[in-house]
């Protein structure tokens, strides 16, 4: 603070006056910042550090683990676990890798459909011959406006085996629909459909914006060269959409990766086909939630899990900023 006062050219010759003025300005700034800082510390920083602390302690509930051989050995009179027992336990557990693989599958499938569905509708809505494009666009964006939990509950009812309209409509064309949420594979499909419903408007908007910045001249030139529709799509449209598409793909991959409430409200991670194994839709965070709060109370383990996932997501976020920075370099 004092250094700043010296280096900044001052209009008043009296140094003492300048010092006190900048000091009081500094005090004011700190006073303004304090409430926000306290909030951030209490709400963001403290829980993260506390989770990290818990992941090193013996805070696992009385319920035994499925195989029953996880004995926690603590030092005398200490709650600290030796040898990062929670981490080694987590990373040597086959459930974790099953859940992890399933989550990656889910993310890939979801993001693929986000992109394909979003791109399809963006291409159609970008066609100037379609009438009433504003109305179509508004109707298509509506799913985005519905809160997640309401969506989840609506779809839970829609997928109901007997009362759900989806099965009733299928019944009209003579198909006996399955009990969607009670069967492993169909529950996974249902959860994917819901997530696509929730997220494709985002992609549609982003890609539509990207499409509108593509100049028509390029297409005309391609047409003179005799390129067909598919050729134009793959050689012109998709490469030119890249700077818009890749950041949004990474972003939605991150949000899909840590999806929790939508699926939890629909299936609670079930249906469980075999006792002691993760359910069909029990993705990464759902699994952790169920380990922590649904009977298991293995908070130490969940803490370790959170730290692992946190590191993964940080890596993905770094990749994201890298990609966007690379693009910025190209386009500026």
């Amino acid at each position, binding site marked *: 603070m004092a250094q700043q006062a010296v280096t900044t050219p001052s209009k008043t010759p009296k140094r003492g006056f300048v010092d006190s003025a900048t000091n009081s300005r500094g005090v004011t700034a700190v006073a303004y910042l304090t409430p926000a800082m306290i909030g951030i510390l209490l709400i963001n920083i403290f829980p993260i550090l506390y989770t990290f602390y818990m992941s090193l302690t013996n805070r696992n509930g009385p319920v035994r683990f499925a195989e029953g051989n996880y004995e926690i050995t603590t030092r005398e009179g200490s709650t600290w676990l030796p040898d990062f027992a929670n981490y080694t336990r987590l990373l040597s557990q086959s459930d974790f890798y099953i859940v992890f693989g399933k989550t990656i599958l889910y993310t890939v499938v979801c993001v693929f459909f986000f992109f394909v569905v979003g791109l399809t509708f963006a291409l159609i809505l970008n066609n100037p011959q379609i009438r009433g494009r504003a109305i179509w666009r508004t109707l298509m964006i509506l799913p985005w406006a519905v809160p997640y939990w309401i969506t989840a509950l*609506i779809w839970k009812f829609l997928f109901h085996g007997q009362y759900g309209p989806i099965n009733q*409509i299928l*019944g009209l064309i003579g198909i006996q629909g399955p009990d969607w949420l009670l069967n492993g594979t169909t529950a996974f499909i249902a959860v994917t459909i819901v997530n696509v419903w929730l997220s494709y408007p985002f992609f549609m908007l982003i890609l539509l914006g990207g499409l509108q910045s593509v100049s028509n001249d390029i297409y005309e030139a391609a047409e003179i060269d005799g390129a067909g529709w598919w050729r134009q799509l793959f050689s012109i449209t998709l490469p030119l959409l890249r700077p818009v598409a890749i950041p949004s793909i990474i972003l939605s991959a991150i949000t899909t990766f840590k999806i929790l409430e939508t699926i939890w409200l629909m299936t609670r991670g079930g249906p469980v086909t075999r006792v002691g194994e993760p359910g069909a839709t029990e993705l990464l965070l759902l699994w952790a939630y169920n380990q922590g709060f649904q009977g298991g109370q293995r908070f130490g383990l969940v803490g370790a899990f959170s730290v692992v996932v946190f590191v993964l997501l940080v890596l993905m976020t770094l990749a994201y900023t890298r990609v966007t920075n690379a693009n910025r370099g190209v386009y500026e």
Partner: protein
Amino acid sequence: MTKRMGPTGMLVQYIILIIGVVFSIFPIYFVAQAALRPGNSLYSTELQLIPANATLENFRYVLTELP
């Protein structure tokens, strides 16, 4: 894309659009019409997209009787 679409191309595009709009609107519509259904007629095993005996009773209940 600049090429003028033939009538079949346009038709295909409109059909895809309509499917998309049905897909995105249907859940919202379903909730809206479910709000108008009387009693527990929502739990019927027959498909009913337009509520019979539509009523605003549910709204009255929510606005006046729920604490």
